């Protein structure tokens, strides 16, 4: 299956990409996607960073199973306001 992945802020700068498409085995979870992406982009491994995950613009847990065409975002610590 294919999913859309969005990177923001420090993660966007480290990958050099705001959005990519990634092929994954069916039934993969958000956490499995994250580990696959860390292999694709070693710079994604930011020491000490606390990430949150969103699928289709809703926060989810790391064991959330992904589906074809899902939009997955890795959310670095937010700092709005």
């Amino acid at each position, binding site marked *: 299956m294919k999913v859309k992945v969005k990177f*923001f802020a420090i993660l966007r700068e480290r990958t050099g990409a705001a959005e990519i498409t990634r092929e994954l085995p069916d039934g993969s979870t958000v956490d499995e996607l994250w580990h696959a992406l860390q292999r694709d982009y070693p710079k994604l491994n930011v020491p000490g960073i606390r990430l949150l995950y*969103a699928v289709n*613009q809703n926060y989810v847990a*790391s064991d959330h199973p992904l589906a074809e065409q899902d939009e997955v975002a890795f959310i670095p610590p937010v*700092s*709005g*306001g």
Partner: protein
Amino acid sequence: MFRVTDKAIDLQELVNFVGDPEAGAIATFIGTTRNNNEGRKVIALDYEAYPEMAEKELARIGAEARAKWSIGRMAIVHRLGPVQITEASVIIAVSSAHRDAAFAACRFAIEEIKKTVPIWKKEVYEGGEVWIGTQTGQPLSAKQP
């Protein structure tokens, strides 16, 4: 009105939006950009967002405030892109029949924005820049509260 914008935020537009004949109060909060942080001199700030999700989260904060307090109308607008020192990065306006609810909802909204809305601030200093992260204590596997 729950949105992000690349343009300067107009306080009066928000106040007009939340105006309500049944309201006895309008509370507003303006978050402004300051020229220093933790001893460093800040020259400029730059905000980035996941815009569609940020607007959904702002609306969720509005719905939560409405469930907690008896408020009339609410507006939250957050600015994106470069914001000059002293300018508004976020403005919140809430109307209510009595002032306590408007004050409480306004305070709640800014605290929630800082916790859950996918917006990031980059501070630019003389000779460097850094993405600011205020989110703490969330283990990698944690579900968002």
